[in-house]
């Protein structure tokens, strides 16, 4: 062995050692039992209560951090792309709306308790949320998507309500100058849709009429000549009249007396409703300023109804019996425990500055993820075994050298992924499997060339040298072109697809080192040690 060979070998060994060191946490993590692994995934040192716990959790979190992460498609989870609807905001508000929304959603998810959520701003008005692992997806979506604008408004009296609805009738009747205009329905297009009008401030209609009423209200709201001094909101719950289910519309004061930002804390409670003990509700405490306003407002409106409105739906509208001084209140209704829990969370973390809509959603259940991992690994193992078998049978000892290079390639590829905190997805596994198939190409080129040179009666040593040097240029060309298309893919793809581009690209780059460098080194070391006249190829 010459000095330069020794140096190369030394470098290779160091490289292998670094790879193994980088992959060690990954190995540790994936050899844990499933329960223990779940604990590592859920570890949140920031939530620890005492010092000892924090240290233990920090260690677990570090282990998680240093191992190769599985993509949402493999471990199950949820990918949501939200769009912030800025259409109703002023220029100044619009500027910060997305950042604010991102922060508030982050707060909500934090309180929901998801390990390693990722919440990123994307472009001008989008937020990308990735929630890995097992979770109640309906609940998570509900929690994230609520605007949670809480308002307190006074319910108008029956007379005021009646007067407004009559005006709406007239305005709508004027717009439709159809024949037969003297029937009741034609003269009262709006109120004729209701079963009862302004009873205790509520007007009840059947479910099938709700959409029609909404579209009439939209016409009224768009009419600039109509002075709408009140706001109209549906009850958030269905109710029954005369044995038929429907919904009530309430007429409320236009300006809110108070808003959700005056809420200091909120909790889910089961003892709020005297009539229905055990029914979940939310109790809240106002800030001192909010409490003072609340006291004033309730004092001035004793005997009227106070509507608690969330996202323009009336949650409840209790009668004000007396001035409420302490700034405490509650929201009850027909909540499930989870809904009440969610409401408490969104009240604590505040309202979004604007409504958000889900524009892209991808969820993968944990069992499909598990299935994908198993199938991906199986396909990889079988594919690798076939390639290795072929190489060894066809090229014998030289094939074995190529296999060593291939193993080092995959080792390096995985180490890079762990080192760069890249995520392994199912297409990513496909990328690795393809890398296995393509990586041996470089060695095939070299070996075929060596065989040709041997046929041309070159000596073994000369054939090896010529094989490598002549094939090298082709190898570079072939790698660069494949790399170019992988780069285009990396630029355009999102999520799992990018995972494919990443593994394929890293695999190709490392292949240039292992398939050419390492295998050449093995040949050199072997051929210089002894006088060689034959080669197993």
């Amino acid at each position, binding site marked *: 062995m010459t000095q330069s060979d020794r140096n190369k070998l030394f470098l290779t060994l160091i490289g292998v050692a670094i790879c193994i060191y980088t992959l060690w946490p990954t190995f540790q993590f994936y050899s844990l039992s499933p329960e223990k692994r779940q604990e590592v995934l859920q570890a949140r040192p920031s939530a620890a209560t005492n010092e000892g716990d924090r240290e233990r959790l920090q260690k677990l979190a570090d282990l998680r951090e240093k191992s190769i992460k599985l993509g949402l*498609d493999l471990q199950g989870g949820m990918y949501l792309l939200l769009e912030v609807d800025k259409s109703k905001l002023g220029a100044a508000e619009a500027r910060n709306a997305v950042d604010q929304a991102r922060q508030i959603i982050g707060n909500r998810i934090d309180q929901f308790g998801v390990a390693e959520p990722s919440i990123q701003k994307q472009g001008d008005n989008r937020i990308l949320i990735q929630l890995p692992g097992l979770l109640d997806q*309906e609940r998570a979506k509900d929690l994230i998507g609520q605007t949670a604008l809480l308002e307190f408004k006074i319910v108008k009296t029956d007379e005021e309500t009646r007067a407004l609805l009559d005006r709406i009738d007239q305005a709508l009747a004027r717009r439709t100058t159809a024949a037969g205009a003297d029937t009741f329905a034609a003269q009262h297009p709006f109120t004729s849709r209701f079963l009862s009008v302004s009873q205790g401030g509520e007007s009840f209609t059947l479910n099938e009429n709700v959409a029609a009423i909404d579209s009439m209200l939209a016409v009224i709201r768009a009419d600039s000549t109509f002075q709408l001094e009140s706001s109209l909101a549906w009850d958030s719950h269905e109710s029954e009249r005369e044995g038929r289910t429907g919904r009530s519309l309430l007429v409320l004061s236009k300006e809110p007396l108070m808003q959700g930002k005056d809420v200091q804390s909120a909790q889910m409670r089961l003892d709020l409703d005297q009539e229905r003990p055990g029914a979940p509700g939310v109790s809240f405490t106002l800030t001192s300023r909010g409490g003072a306003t609340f006291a004033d407002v309730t004092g001035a409106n004793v005997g009227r109804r106070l509507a608690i409105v969330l996202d323009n739906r009336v949650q409840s509208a209790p009668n004000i019996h007396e001035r409420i001084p302490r700034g405490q209140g509650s929201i009850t209704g027909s909540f499930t425990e989870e809904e009440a829990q969610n409401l408490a969370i969104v009240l604590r973390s505040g309202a979004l500055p604007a409504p958000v*809509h*889900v*524009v*892209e*959603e*991808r969820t*993968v259940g944990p*069992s*499909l993820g598990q299935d*994908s991992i198993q*199938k*991906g690994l*199986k*396909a990889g193992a*079988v*594919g690798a075994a*076939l*390639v290795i078998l*072929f*190489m060894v049978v*066809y090229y*014998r000892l030289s094939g074995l050298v190529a296999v060593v290079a291939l193993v080092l390639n995959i080792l390096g590829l995985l180490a890079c992924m762990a080192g760069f905190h890249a995520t392994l997805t199912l*297409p990513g596994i*496909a990328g690795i*499997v*393809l890398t*296995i*198939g*393509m990586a041996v190409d470089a060695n*095939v*080129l070299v070996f*075929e060339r060596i*065989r*040709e040179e041997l046929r041309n009666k070159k000596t073994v040593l000369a054939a090896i040298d010529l094989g490598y040097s*002549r094939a090298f*240029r*082709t190898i570079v*060309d*072939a790698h*660069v*072109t*494949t*790399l*170019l*298309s*992988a*780069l*285009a*893919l990396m*630029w*355009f*793809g*999102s999520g*799992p*697809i990018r995972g*494919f581009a990443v593994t*394929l690209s890293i695999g190709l780059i490392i292949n240039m080192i292992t398939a050419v460098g390492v295998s050449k080194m093995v040949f050199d070391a072997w051929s210089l040690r002894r006088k060689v006249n034959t080669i197993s*190829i």
Partner: protein
Amino acid sequence: MLEILHGLNVDWMGKRHIAYWFSGICVLISIVSLVMHGGPRYGVDFTGGTLLEVAITPPPHVEKVRAAVDQAGFVGSEIQSLVKPGQFLIRLGTREGVKEPAKLVHDALTAAHAGSTIEILRVESVGPRVGGELRGAAIKAVFLALGLILVYVAIRYDWRYSLGAIVALFHDVFIALGAISLTNKEVTLTVVAAFLTIAGFSINDTIVVFDRIRERKQAMRRDTPQKVMNTAINETMSRTIITSLTVALTVLSLFFLGGEVIHDFSFAMLVGVVFGTYSSVFVASGLALETQLYLERVTPGRKK
């Protein structure tokens, strides 16, 4: 020494006209299939919409699932039974103004299959605007990749060769698209990833042949271009076959063992690998020869 295809002496270029016919027919079939299907069948990634994969135990009949989905208001949805009994892929028809289509369907399925367990394995829901954006990005990526490859090949090789390489590239990707259309599979993000990989693989194979042609041209100055090319192709044939074989081995294992999610990807790759190998010999080299012969005809005496 175990060898296949050593010492070949086949007149590949003499048979190039047969290959042109074959390629022409394949491209024609692809075009006909695409026209008859009204263009590529895009998946929800690109059209927008909702795709659900559910597992119901015990397995019900597909018609029962269809009835439940209709009940939820999504009439005209496509429902496909997967290989595993009780697993269905549901591509929801459009229904205006529905915020939570997946939830509606889940509820309807639960109501229709009392006593069964229903698991939502996967939901993909893409808004129409995002779908349009993804489609735009995919088209851009494909052209970016082809453009980059084109530039690289143009720099590294004589333009007479580049032409053949690029035509071969389009030929391979187009036939893979045709195969997807012919088997009525959807063009999804993953399938586009396969197209790009095919592009890389196709040009890779072509480059190996071209490199050898260039090398042989130096050594065989007195021979006709046809003979030079035949020699180069014969010499690289074993490598071409072996590399395609190793890639095909891995793609086949993905195809048969990799599961539903990457099945279409593996299928497209498989077609791409087969045609990529074929086209580097016949289409790319054939056209390179064609341009060379044409140039010799128009500029006699400047034999190269």
